């Protein structure tokens, strides 16, 4: 990421009301990058779980329907 895109940070001192807006330090920027990477990784894992859950539900619903349950009965479970 180019230097000109370096993020800024807003700091509020709750005691004094002082407000500071400044560019992030190298350390803060590194942490943001780590957080972003973790976010992508975590989100992908959660989406995979959710997709599997949806597939399992669809499969289960189909099996219940094959047993003769109506859509309303399946939805009421």
């Amino acid at each position, binding site marked *: 990421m180019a230097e000109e895109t370096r*993020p*800024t*940070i*807003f*700091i*509020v*001192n*709750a*005691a*004094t*009301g002082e*407000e500071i*807006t400044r560019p*992030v330090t190298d350390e*803060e920027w590194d942490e*943001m990058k780590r*957080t*972003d990477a973790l*976010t992508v990784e*975590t*989100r992908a894992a*959660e989406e995979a779980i*959710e997709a599997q859950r949806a597939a399992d539900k669809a499969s289960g619903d189909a099996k219940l329907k094959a047993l003769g349950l109506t859509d309303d009965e399946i939805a009421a479970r």
Partner: protein
Amino acid sequence: MGQPLKQFFTSTLTSPVSELKIVNLNASGNRSTNSGTEGMAFRTEVMMPQRLTNGNYIEEISMRLGDNGGNNWQTGGQYMRRYNRYAHTSANQTWSTNDVNWSGSYTYSSATVGRFVGAAGNAVGDEYDGVNSFVIDWYAPTTQMGPVAIYWGGGMSVGSATNQTTEGEIGFYSGSSRTTTYCYGFGSNGGSFKLYPASSNFPIGTQITMYEFTRANNE
């Protein structure tokens, strides 16, 4: 939640920023005591006039806790990071409560010293409503509390009211472990927190406000 006691501060962004830090809570005139007879609660409102600047519908904001100066932040352990996401595609959708990073139980009981309300915050609108915002509440009962173990940096967490380190923190604390201490408010070591929207910025006009509330026990 009970009645608002006072507003700690309110600030409005005049430029987009990647992170909001609230520091020096200990010296902000808020309660810091080892005993108490009434409950207390904190509310943080982040009101954005539009969605975050990444332009995506799926957004995430994490919240982390640190020391009073805002220089050291928890990087591990319990309850150090929470986030909430949503995937708004139409009006009046709420924030997801499924995609929330959550550690530990938050079920209230007489043996529980506090909890974080609303799964990392409650949305109060979305960009289609003209405001893209969330409210973070956390609170603590007071009576029925046993000795609470305080460990550094934690806040908004829950745990049994027994002598267990890393559990039972309320509010914002930092510093070395202080076991078997009743604590409410921000603690003698103060604390700080920060909000970070992943790969994005809080937009111009974002307003962050923090309040203290009273609350009845068991409320």
